[in-house]
Each structure stands twice: as C-alpha cells, then as structure tokens.
C-alpha cells in the first residue's frame, strides 16, 4: 500500500488533488481512499489531505501517521508542520519550490528521496493563476509512479470541464521538469 499525505493551505486544492488521484487509481483497477483532514478548514490555514492506493480493498479508517510520500504544496509549511518528521525510511518528499535540490536539502536538512519542481512558475504560465495542486500531481507521478500520467486525463476532464486541458498541460509540464534525487539515508 502506498500512503501519501498532502500538505497545503486552505484554498490551494490539496483535497481536490487527493480526490482526483484516488479516482485515477480506481480507474486503473486499483483501490484507493482520498480524504481530507476533516477539520474546520479556512482559506490560508494549514490543511492535510490523505491518499491511500493499494491492489486490494483498503480497510484502514484513520489518518496517515507514517506516510510513504509527503507532497508539500507550500514550502512555508515546512517550518510549521515538519511534514517529513514522520515519513517512513525510504520515503519520498515532493516539494513545490524554485530552489535546487542541494539548496533545499541544506535549508531543511532533508535526507529522504527528494523531488522538486517550480510549480508556482508553471501554474502561473500555463493556468494563469498560482494554484499548484494539479501541477504538483505531475511531480508526484514523476517521483512515485502512483498512477500513469494518462490516467489523470479523465478525472481532470470530469472535474474541470473546459479548464481541464490547461490543467493537463500544467501537470504534463511538471512531470517533465521535476528533478528527483535518491535519498541519502
């Protein structure tokens, strides 16, 4: 089972991301759970969203305490939430940043496998707005292979209608531009 925890701020679309990815995984014939942290979320406040993907029916009904992957939509959350603190050994951090892997490791002391992409830049260019949730799905897929890139097309079309093509383009661009470096521990 693959357990992914999304760290974002209210309004950044973390919950939408896990829902889209869960639907895509189920479309592939897998089992998945996508759910929010069930708090009284407010715009701008830190929020969590959770995603499980497995080859069999998932029986857990609790939050993800020790994820395989953390996806960080907003780097300002790293100091507040310490998202990598409970990451499994061999886990993956997927981060939206305009900094290099080396600088990111230096700044935050990350030792896990690290995937970075400047999703803000891509989202602004392709979508015209700095909303990075669908863009970051491209980075996540690149770093983890959680689903096939093509599997995102249908859920994105159903969710965004005419806006889907831009989201698909942003996801695709992030998939191509994401840089992944294996963990050092």
């Amino acid at each position, binding site marked *: 089972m693959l357990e992914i925890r999304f760290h974002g701020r209210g309004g950044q679309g973390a919950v939408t991301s*896990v*829902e889209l990815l*869960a*639907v895509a*995984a*189920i*479309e592939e014939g897998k*089992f*998945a*759970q*996508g*759910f*929010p942290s*069930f708090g*009284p979320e407010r715009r701008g406040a830190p929020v969590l969203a959770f995603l499980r993907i497995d080859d069999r*029916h*998932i*029986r*857990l*009904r*609790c*939050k993800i*305490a020790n994820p395989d992957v953390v996806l960080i939509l907003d780097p300002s959350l790293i100091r507040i939430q310490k998202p990598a603190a409970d990451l499994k050994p061999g886990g993956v951090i997927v981060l939206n940043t305009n900094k290099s892997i080396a600088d990111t490791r230096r700044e935050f002391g990350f030792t896990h496998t690290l995937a970075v992409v400047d999703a803000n830049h891509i989202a602004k260019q392709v979508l015209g707005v700095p909303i990075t949730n669908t863009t970051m799905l491209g980075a996540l897929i690149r770093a983890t292979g959680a689903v096939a890139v093509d599997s995102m097309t249908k859920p994105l079309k159903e969710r965004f209608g005419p806006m889907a093509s831009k989201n698909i383009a942003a996801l695709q661009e992030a998939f191509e531009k994401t840089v992944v470096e294996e963990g050092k521990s």
Partner: protein
Amino acid sequence: MGHREGMEVSIAVSHAVQLARAEAIAAYPITPQTHIVEHLSGMVANGDLEAEFINVESEHSAMSACIGMSATGARTYTATSSQGLALMHEILFIASALRLPIVMTVANRALSGPLSIWNDHSDIMAAKDIGWIQIFVENGQEAFDHTIMAFKIAENSNVLIPTIINMDGFILTHVVEAHNFVDQDMVDAFLPGYHPRHTLDPKYPVTMGAFAMPEIYTEVKMKHQVTLMNSYEHIVKVWQEWGDRTGRRYQPVERYKTEGAKTLLLTMGCLGEVAEIAVDELRAAGEAVGLVKLRLWRPFPFADLRQALAGADLVIVCDRALSPGGAAPPVLAELRSAFYPLSSRPQMLGFIVGLGGRDVSPENFKDILKRAQEESSHGPTQEFYLYGVRG
C-alpha cells in the same frame, strides 16, 4: 451489470437514492451529511431525479414533511446527522408509529457539547428507541447497497417500518473510494414501486395519527414491537436476494476469524474493518482472537449474537458512545442484557473508542485486546473503560 467507479461515498449514496427512484425528499443540510442531500437537490433541479425536494428550515420540519409525503404514498428519503437527528427526535417516533417506510441515512457524528462535527455514535444511540429499523455499514460499497435495500425492507407490507442506515460521518461520508454500482434495470427488478394500501388522499379522506386512549395504546405499542422483531426475517430475505443478484452478502451479525477464538472483539460501523487488521496480525502471531460485527442494531438479533459469541470466554464490546451515569455504554448494556438469561455466557468488557472523531488504528485494537485480557485475568477494575483517555 453496473460499473466500478471512484467517488465520494456521500455521492454514491445519493446515486443509490436516485436508482431507488425516491419520489419525495425533505432535508436540511448538516455536516457531515450535507453532500448527500446537496447532490440529490442537484439531481432534482436538473431533472435527473423525478422527485419532490422540499427545502425546510430545520430537521424537525424535514421529518415532519417526510411523514406527510410518505403518507401520500410517495417513496420518501432524507438524511441527517448529530444535532439534526436530535432536533427531529420527537417526530421520529411518529414516523414509526404511523408505519411510514421512510428511509434515512444518518451520517453518525458526536452530539454537542462541546461542539464537535466529528464522528462517533452518540447521535444514533440517543435515538435507539425510536422504533425504526437501524442498520450499520462499514464502507462505501455497503452504504450504497444498503441504501437501496432499505427501501425494499421498509416498504414490505409485512414490515412498513422506517429504516435508518448508519454510516460513520467523515471517515466514510467524505472519502473517495471504489464502488461497484448496479444498473437501473437491476434496481427496478429488485425494488418494485411503493403502493401502500392506505394513503392520504383528499378524494378518500382518512385519519392518520389519531390519539390512542389508554384502552388501546398498549396494544398499539405491542403490535409495533412484534412487527419490528418480525421484520428480521424480511431483512434477511432482502439481503439474501441482493446477495444472489450482486454477490455481495450481508448478515445481521458478521463473524471474522471467530473459529476457535477465545477472545472476541465486537464492533459496529466502519471500525469493523480496522479491527480486522488487528485480528489478522494477532492470528498470524498465534493468538486465538476474532471479531464479531453487529450490522443490525434494531431489531436486535438476539439469536445470531448468542450463536456468534457462544464459544468465547471474553468479549470486548467497543462502543462509540457514552451513557453518562448509566450501567454501561449502549452496546455493552444491550449485550450484557441479552446474555444475562443464559446459564453459560462469556465475560464482557466494554471499551469506549473513537469519541468525537478520535482516530482508532489497528494498533489501538491490539492494545485493547491486550489490556482486556489483563483485566480479565485479574478481575475487571472498572465497569467499562474509556480507551486512551488522558488525565
């Protein structure tokens, strides 16, 4: 037949209501039930469901409107949660006494105060004596299946009792997961239209809900009690037919790895599957533990439970509600009462878990099993245990 699709469980439930061709809905939105009625409202507005949808100003009015609509012979649905169920409380008794087969989803949530929007079973446990059929589900698939089946159970002319499907708030309602849908033809074949013998009709006036003098009130209550207990056989038949059509089978009391188990956990709702994981791990380590899941809460399945728990020395009843000042939390109290007349019965310990949205993990169940076995070995120190409570 049908297709497999990932969607939020609440939306799957709204599709089940649509497939059941509900004709009348009255509801007031309350977290975490809102998405169900929101989607139904959209379906009615878009012409995807031919039904009357009445927006009301409270749950008290929602249930009152459901009673009126059901009395005219319309297939009637609503959903609520927590304070909403509490606010419709007095009307719930009238719905069942009038024998109106309303189907309601309760997205189980804690009652205030302190204010909590999160999941536990205190809402339904405060309404256990309303005279409705009450069923619990464990996952999205079950929520979908049981919503459709509930109409067939409730509307059976030998039953005519409103039915609640309990689904855990948030930890079920707000999760996107896989569902196997059934198609409209299958549902139409399974669930015929609702055609009651007596309806409210201005052309043929009748009185419904008249008062009962002391000479008759007791007999009416007796009739209700007998009919509710007898609904058991019809519930099982409906579940059997669904199982034959879909391959998904349900029992009033379900057993998981109980063969040879000396210690059994007992759960209701979606924590059953979490407890399964703990049982799997302990079984693998050679421990004789198992799990019993109570799906049918009303009518209470005495015989099934007595059979399922017969071989155990210790039963750990996991309640998700408190009965403040009472003898035991609600499920434990019922279990102890059901077993008291028997000459041989297992020891029963109660652990209250998952109040107000507190997470319950497989590790918690393993810990509960360990602690219960310790308590049992030296004699219980408490009537029941509030698991994980601090200070």
